[in-house]
């Protein structure tokens, strides 16, 4: 029994060492990747290390390689959103409504989407001023008023 136990322990230790080795390889790879990024982005380092590999050249290569692929995806979105500027009233109201919706949506999530017990776990008392759902409302409502004010 004792020998089986010790065998199991040694296998477990080997497994842990193997796992740590895998992790170490991952970390070293990431470190090397980080170094490459550093070399690419700090001009002094890249100049010192490789006279021929300038950040501008890398940037230009990325632009040429990925530009034709990404522009057809992002340009229509950009054009659509820029088109909103043609309607002065809408271009003021839509952004404000989205922003206000974000605040209101967050308040609704806390008040309706979360259980009261979860929100107020460990609260000093059950009184309303210890209810974090009301804290959320009190903290966020002034923001809604501010963004409503700036619509005009």
């Amino acid at each position, binding site marked *: 029994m004792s020998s089986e136990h010790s065998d199991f322990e040694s296998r477990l230790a080997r497994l842990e060492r193997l796992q740590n080795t895998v*992790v170490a390889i*991952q970390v070293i790879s990431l470190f090397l990747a980080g170094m490459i990024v550093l070399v690419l982005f700090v001009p002094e380092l890249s100049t010192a290390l490789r006279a021929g590999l300038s950040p501008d050249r890398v940037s230009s290569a990325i632009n040429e390689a*990925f*530009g034709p692929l990404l522009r057809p995806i992002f340009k229509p979105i950009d054009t659509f959103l820029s088109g909103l*500027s043609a309607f002065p009233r809408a271009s003021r109201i839509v*952004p404000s409504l989205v*922003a206000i919706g974000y605040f209101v949506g967050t308040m609704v999530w806390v008040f309706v989407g979360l259980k009261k017990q*979860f929100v107020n776990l460990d609260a000093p008392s059950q009184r309303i001023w210890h209810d*974090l759902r009301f804290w959320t409302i009190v*903290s966020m409502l002034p923001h809604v008023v501010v963004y409503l004010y700036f619509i005009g």
Partner: protein
Amino acid sequence: MDQVTTGLHPIDLITITTYMVGVFILGTFYGKYVNNSKDFFLASRTLPFWAIGMSIVVSDIGAMDFVAVAGSAYTHGIAVANFDWIGSMPAMVFAAFLFIPYFWRSGVYSVPEFLGRRYNTAVQMLHAFIWGVFLLTMLALMLWVTGNNILNTILGWNTQTVIWMTVFVCGVYTFSGGLSAVVMTDVVQLIVMFVGGLALLFLSMWEVGGWFEMKQKILALGPEYQEHFRILLPHDTPKPYPWTGIVFGLGFVLAVAYMSGNQVIVQRTFGARSEWDAKGGMLFGGFLKSFIPLMVAIPGLCAILIVPGLETGDLAVPNMIKILMPPGLRGLMFIALFAALMSSVDSTLNSATTIWTTDLYGKVLGWITGKPISDRHILVMGRLFTAVFIITGGILAPVVGKAESLYVFIQSALSMFQGPTLAILLLGVIWRRATGWGAFAGLSLGVVFTTVLNNVENLFPSDDPFLFVAWWSFVFSCIVTIVISLLTQPEPEEKIRGLVWGQVMQDETAQHVLRERTGS
């Protein structure tokens, strides 16, 4: 930048000296309560919500914010206030209810440690390394930029004196009292900062005749000021804050990543005396943060009328101090700037030390020796790292301050990681099927995607599209993490117990395990 304020009245000097000595005594007082690593890094988990909230705000707002945000309001208008309104409050609510409960209940010392438990050591070390390097560089930069660009250039103080005074005072009390000292001195520093900032707001509003009078006069100045009172600028604006970037990039991604994944911000909540205090502290911090634009952005707008035609917007606050503030109040404003510097330095120092001690040093030493390091060892190393980092920060401040490319690189590197980091943090908490390999792929490929987006021309309307890049890198990392997770083996139930939304909300066993883990 010209020196705009010279000399100090004796009453200002007395105020400043009293403040420095007071903060030093208060900070070092907490040293007597530090007996183990939990006392040092987590303030023995005794912090009340009000201290947490105040500390979060003052750790986030540095002296540079006073000058730069006012300067940006002077140049671009009220849109800059978005960074403290839509760029803070919703993110802090999400942090309070979506992330903080898991961090607090798991009893971790740092965000990387949480990621390590949820995913694997590779994700933990990558996250720790990025933040460890970033925080150390920021420490040196903060000392240099505030010491040289504000307190020396503007107020005429000697840069080296400012740097080493800050190093000594902050270094000694952080070394001695750890997180307790940092948070309690932050409370005092926030009060000082708010008194100084509100004084500047009231004096500048008085000078221009109130909000409506100011708005009318600025709008009458010409077409270049017509957008100064528009909080959400059009998508195709030539200014740097289009509404789409502000709402999606800042509000949904950068702010949430910052408030939930930045060790400097969330470490205070790890030290909360209860889960309620941790959540409440975050909400209270968000409430206090709402006042920051009033103290910095509105005086910047007032400066358009009080000190028109400045060479750069960054001169607005110093000029306003010189013109509007009498001796005594001017000393208080100097202290407010100094408090902003000290609070950012002590918080960054303490958080950098936590990450380097527990996530990097502790982990690597554990691998080498094959056994966990003792609590005493962690405490000693925590203090040693504190001393080494603050002294190194002081020595390297001029070097780092002058290496512009390094600063740009560090800033770019951090913005590259924010979207992907939020993706894995969010999925790790809300989706039990997210796996270590999914997170690893999401984080690393997300960073690659960010690099690509930053280098492809004419993708976004802005010249500096970091807000758009943050949003799209987040979306991309979410997709990669989900796809790779579905293609790999699920994490064992025992490993993720108590770290995932559904379990914590519904599973009583998980609740029990968490209570045992935190000892509550």
